[in-house]
Each structure stands twice: as structure tokens, then as C-alpha cells.
């Protein structure tokens, strides 16, 4: 299968707000269940081990008209909760038996309550991952959180999840993580050959497809990309930061590249890359997941950074590792975590002489010209003056 065919399928999945692929998976065998989750991170291994499909819900994007959802939120609240509730109220999530709301911010946290009040037949769980990164404190709490989630999932399926089930799922997601890391590494090497839109669409497909199928898709794409030779441009390599929750429209991502930037790292779909190392594949599965979370989590603005010295260190590392020449901060409007974090990260970048710019967007932003001009000017200025 060629890259074009793979990407066309990914694009169809991305545009399909009825989640047909996930519906088809569920319909294929009786007793299958689908559990939705919001960004940024949930331990999808648990859902998989329970014989269920984890379905990443990333709002309604720029193709969906939000009507009922706007009645739930004031004008000064970001767009993702209103388009997400719109998905539910319009029946697009009627096949989803459970929804997980990770601890990102107050808005997503409270969305779990909106779900409890409006979607009474759905299993709803707020996933409170620890902000304390001590194995004996936060780690223990996290294990208990995962046990409670498992109990909830077992209640839906009526099937006990064993340690072996969990270890088998861990193995599959480790493979997935390695493939994704391989793709990102290849993109750093050949950004002209692997457009950011293709990486993005592959990541989004992984939010809808079963991990087994996504692993095949990723393997096929990585194999096929070797046959592709696209013209190399004199673009500026950038890292994008701040887009971890409400997603930018695909056109915005495309516009960044068209403006003269190669995006060599990003925080778009972090659930795929949250754990920066493999999870141990033997022993106590929940402890392995917890230990990996404590030791190898991605740092974002939704997490507490215990050390001032480490603030922004992962971002600087991403710049250095990818050979990026600058950082583009792009945050959704009214996103408290990303917007409050940004000035601190900008200071860290300035101290490391890393050029950066910032803008805001919404998932339904339609005007790309200003963003293209801003990103283009940024890319040009780096080429001319850095």
C-alpha cells in the first residue's frame, strides 16, 4: 500500500464525525464496547485489555456546526467542550458506552460533570493522574485510580481483566509507541518527504482504529515512505507547542508548512507519545504503567513542574534533538494552561537563544492568511538573521 492510499484513508477517518471505523469495529462482534476519551493522556492499555476500543475524542473540528453546544458555554470558554457535547447531543457518540475525562484543565474536568448530567446511560470517569511524581505517593495513588477504572470497565463488559491481559496490551502499545517514535525520527531526518499533515493524520487515525490495525498502518507507511522522493525546500525547521488539547484545523497545520516551515516536533496528539519510554512487559502491569508514568511522562502545561530548573527543559531538548531553528507557540483561545505556561516557556527559550513566536486559534479557525503571514515572516527572519 502506498503512502497516498494510507493518507487518504486517514483523512477519511479524520473527517468522519460519525466515527464509522469505530462503529464498524464494534458491530463486527457482539459484546464489543467503545470507550471514548479526551486529550491529553489516559492509559489506553487498560481499555484495550478489557477487550474494548479506546476512541480519542478531539472535538468537532472545523467541519461541524455547533448549535446546541453553544448553549452550554459562555463566550469566554474554549471551543472543544461545546463541540464535544454537540457530538453527543447529535447522536454521533451514541455507540460509546464510556467516556474518560483526563485532568487537563477546569473546563475538561467540568465537562465530565456535564456528561454525568446529560448522558446518564454512559459510564463517566474523571481520570485524575497524579501531579506528585513520587512512586510511593503519586505512583500508589495512580495505581488505585487505574484499579478503579478497571473495575468500571469490568462493570461494562462483565469480564475480569487479568494481569496477562494487561501485559499483552502493554506490548501492543509499546510497538505502537516505537513506530510513532520512528516516524517522528524519520521526519526530523527528511521533513520534506514526510509532510506534517501526513504525520498528523496518521496520529489521528490511531485515535479511532484499534491499536493492532494502527500498528499495521504505521508499518506500511514507514515502509512505503522509502519509495517517496519529494523536493527539498529551504524551509525553517520549527517545533510547535500548545496544541495538545483543542486541535488546530488541518488547514492551519498545512498553512504552517506552506508558509516555509518544516514542523519537526509537536504536541498535537500526546496520548500516543506521553510515555517517553517503553512500559515494562513483565511483572505487575499496573505498577509498570504507573512507574513509567512517574519516570517518563511528557511535561506539558497541564502538569506541575516541581523544579524551576526543569521548566521548559523538554521543549529545549525537543528543539536541540530535532535541529529546529525556532518554536511556534500556538494555543487555543481561552486555554488557561497553554496560555499561562507560554510566558515561562518563552523566557526559557529566550535564555537559550531560541527564536519563537505565538498566536492563538480555535478548532474552527477559518482565516489562515494572517497565520501564514506570521509564520512565513518568522521563517524568513530566521533564515535571514539567525
Amino acid at each position: 500500500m502506498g503512502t497516498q492510499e494510507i493518507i487518504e484513508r486517514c483523512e477519511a477517518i479524520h473527517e468522519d464525525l460519525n466515527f464509522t471505523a469505530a462503529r464498524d469495529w464494534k458491530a463486527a462482534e457482539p459484546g464489543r464496547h467503545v470507550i471514548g476519551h479526551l486529550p491529553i493522556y489516559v492509559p489506553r492499555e487498560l481499555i484495550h485489555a478489557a477487550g474494548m476500543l479506546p476512541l480519542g475524542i478531539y472535538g468537532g473540528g472545523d467541519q461541524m456546526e455547533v448549535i446546541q453546544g453553544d448553549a452550554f458555554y459562555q463566550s469566554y470558554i474554549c471551543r472543544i467542550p461545546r463541540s464535544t457535547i454537540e457530538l453527543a447531543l447529535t447522536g454521533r457518540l451514541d455507540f460509546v458506552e464510556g467516556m474518560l475525562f483526563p485532568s487537563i484543565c477546569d473546563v475538561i474536568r467540568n465537562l465530565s460533570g456535564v456528561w454525568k448530567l446529560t448522558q446518564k446511560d454512559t459510564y463517566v470517569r474523571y481520570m485524575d493522574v497524579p501531579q506528585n511524581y513520587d512512586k510511593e505517593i503519586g505512583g500508589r495513588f495512580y495505581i488505585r485510580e487505574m484499579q478503579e477504572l478497571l473495575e468500571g470497565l469490568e462493570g461494562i463488559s462483565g469480564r475480569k481483566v487479568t494481569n496477562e491481559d494487561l501485559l499483552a496490551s502493554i506490548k501492543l502499545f509499546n510497538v505502537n509507541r516505537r513506530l510513532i517514535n520512528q516516524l517522528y525520527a524519520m521526519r526530523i531526518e527528511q521533513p520534506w518527504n514526510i509532510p506534517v499533515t501526513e504525520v498528523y493524520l496518521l496520529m489521528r487515525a490511531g485515535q479511532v482504529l484499534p491499536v493492532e490495525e494502527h500498528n499495521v498502518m504505521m508499518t506500511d507507511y514507514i515502509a512505503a515512505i522509502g519509495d517517496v522522493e519529494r523536493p527539498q525546500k529551504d524551509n525553517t525547521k520549527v517545533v510547535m507547542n500548545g496544541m495538545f488539547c483543542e486541535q488546530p484545523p488541518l488547514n492551519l497545520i498545512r498553512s504552517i508548512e506552506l508558509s516555509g516551515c518544516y514542523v519537526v516536533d509537536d504536541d498535537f496528539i500526546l496520548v500516543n507519545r506521553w510515555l517517553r519510554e517503553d512500559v515494562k512487559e513483565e511483572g505487575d502491569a499496573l505498577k509498570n504503567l504507573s512507574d513509567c508514568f512517574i519516570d517518563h511522562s511528557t511535561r506539558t502545561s497541564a502538569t506541575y513542574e516541581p523544579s524551576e530548573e526543569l521548566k521548559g527543559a523538554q521543549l529545549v531538548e525537543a528543539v536541540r534533538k530535532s535541529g529546529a531553528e525556532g518554536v511556534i507557540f500556538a494555543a487555543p483561545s481561552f486555554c488557561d494552561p497553554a496560555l499561562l505556561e507560554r510566558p515561562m516557556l518563552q523566557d526559557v527559550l529566550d535564555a537559550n537563544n531560541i527564536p519563537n513566536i505565538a498566536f492563538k486559534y480555535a478548532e474552527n479557525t477559518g482565516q489562515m492568511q494572517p497565520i501564514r503571514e506570521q509564520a512565513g515572516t518568522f521563517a524568513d527572519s530566521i533564515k535571514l538573521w539567525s
Partner: protein
Amino acid sequence: MTTEKKAPVDLSKDVQKDASQLLQKEMIRGNYERLAQAEENHKEKVVYTFVPGNLNELVMCFDVVGNYPEINALQSAMQKKTGAYVMEAERAGQDEDVCTYVKADLGMMRKGNIGPAGKKLADPDLLLLSYTGCFTFMKWFELLRHEYKCDTTMLHVPYQGDGEITQSMRDYVVKQLKEEVIPALERTSGVKFDIDRLREHLRESAKAEDKLVQVLESAKLKPSPIDSYFGGLYYVGPTFSAFRGTPECTAYYDALWDEVNERIQKGQGPVTPEGVMTEEKYRLVVEGPLNYTHMREFWKMFYDEGAVVVASSYTKVGGNYEQGFRHDPDNPLESLADYCLGCYTNLNLPSRTKMLENYLNDYEADGLLINSIKSCNSFSAGQLLMMNEIEKRTGKPAAFVETDLVDPRYFSPSNVKNRLESYFQMVDQKRSAA
């Protein structure tokens, strides 16, 4: 107009205050003086912390002086200073979309950290980030740490996503207290932790909490002798801040209760800045924080119409005592954990909705008013659904106004007044239809 005074008033002056209010003012002044002294002579260590989930009893065990940035922001807002502070923070790179409490604090710091009492406040020796019910707190103290480069300790308080406190949550908080927070306070202060000292403070807290509940529940009477929102701000002040667990705090509540009881005996309504309300026309439950930049103007819109707030959620943000929780000297750390876990914004939406519904019934209120705060997502996200749910469950009318805590740009007096007047008409119509 339903207060005893009728003549036009100068909103910047002519404020009538109860003796308890003056007592509290003196307590606050004393704390600001300690913070100013700490800046001058460096004899006391300074700990900055937040109102919801504050660990005042624990902090006092280390002979440090506490500073509450939220209190500074709201005091500064009442003094009309925060508009400039917010803009100063925005000039320094903070986005216009984010929490204005944070920006007011950062702006004050950038302008010399001159506190509401007019003196420079001491820089923190420790930032005690009790992260309860609000994600922004986490970034707020990271931003302060970024500026002050001082020690920080964090207490992560899990959210009551399923509407209950589990043993796992309690254990997690207690373990953090034992292994992170107390050692950090010991390091900063050089004082060894003494659990018996903590027990003594907790015993004192429970006394004040009993009295606070007595005061708040007096609003079930008709007429209500108190206003639980505007007046309630003053009533909760000492338990929400640097005084809970002190004999002075208990004395304040004794004095407050005496005043309220006296009004009950006389059949009087609440005290407003223009005197005692003479006619109670509307009994309201209010959800959401206050606007501080135009507090008196806002309050006047209520008392001029004879509207009394008989219960509010805002007065539960720094402690939720009506359901029976008290700080417990016999289970000191566990009760600190339960206190943090039980603060209002740490409750899930169904629990918040149920609580407001109960208020409407128990306090025989005419309806619900939501003051939605532009920059407080913790409160605001989901309020429209809560409003609809409560209307559906109680059949009582609800209304929605939008202001901000400390950013004067978001207080539009004519809009708010229009909404309130329409709302009161709606209540009248409901009554006449009944």
C-alpha cells in the same frame, strides 16, 4: 429602596460597618503589618498560599506568616487598583484570555508588591501550592516561582469526579502532607512539626466553624438577618484565610453571632452599606464568585430592590461546613485532607447542582442567580447547564449575569442592572401566576 436610608449616597464613602467587620478589618491590617515587618526585618518567614484548601492550622505550627494572593487581589480590586495591575501583567506577556486573579497578582508584584495596606509585602520564602479545585492555581504558583525563584511545595488534591471522597484520595493527600508539605515547612521555618500544636489549632477551627454555620443557616429565617453573598464575604473572611485556628478567629465569630442574633431578636434584615434592610422582597441563591471592582455598586442593585441572598456557593469555596464537616483534632491530617477535598470547586457538577437545589428548597428562595466570572473556568464551565437543571428540578426562575472578579473592564453596570431588573420581574410574574 428598602433600606432605612433614602438619600443619595456617595458609593465611595458613607459605609456602615458592624463591630465584627471592624474587628476583622483590624485582624487583616495586623496580618498585612506582619508581612510588611517581615519585609523590613526578615524575622519571620513568609509562606504564600491559596484560599481553597488552605492549610492555615498547619502553617501556623511553623511560626511563619501567611500571605494569600487571592485576598490581596480582591482587596486591591475593592481599592480600584487591579485594572492597572491586570494591564501591567498583560504588558509583561500574559494573555488577555487568562485568569485575571493571576494577572492582578503578577501586576501587583511587578509594580513593587505594595499590598492593599499600602506597604511592601515580603517576598515568599515558600510557595505552598495547595492545588484544590482549580488548575490555574498550579500555573499561578509556577509563575510566581519563576519570578521569585523560591522554594515551592505542592499538595495535589484529587477532584471528586464521582461525587465522593475515597480512602485512596484521603491517603494520597495525607501522604503528601507527611512527606512533602510538612518537611518543606520545617525546612523553610527551621521549626519542628508538633502535632499537638496542630490539634490545638484544629480544635479552635472547629469552634469557629460551628459559629459560621450558625450564622449562615440563620438565613433560613424570614426575614433573613444576613446576606449570604455580599455580607457572606465578610462572614467567611477569617475562616478562609490567615486566621482560622486562632482564638481571634473564634472571638470574631462570637461577636458576629451576637450581632446576627440581635437582629434575629429584633426581626431585622441584613446590614447593608446603607443601613439595615427594611423589606425583604426577594430571597435568592447565588452561584459564582463576587465582583470586587464594583462590589458596592453591585450590592446596591440587590438591596435597592429588596433582594437578599440567602445562600451562596462562593461562601463554600474556602470550606464546606454545612454538611457537617469540621476540622478534627483527633484526626488532624485526615481532617485537613477532607477539608481540602470538600471545598466547593472540588465538587463535581452534579454535586454542585444538588447543593444549589437544596439551598433553593431549604432556604425557601425565590430563585437562582448565577454570577458568571469571565476568568474563572473552575466555577464557570458548566454553569449554564446547572442553571437549566435547577430550573427544571425546582420550577423556580434562574438568571445569569456576567462580570469578573478583579478586572473592571468586565463589569458593565447597565447590563447587569437590566438583567437583574428583568429577573426580579420574572420572579414577580412567577409569584402572581402561582
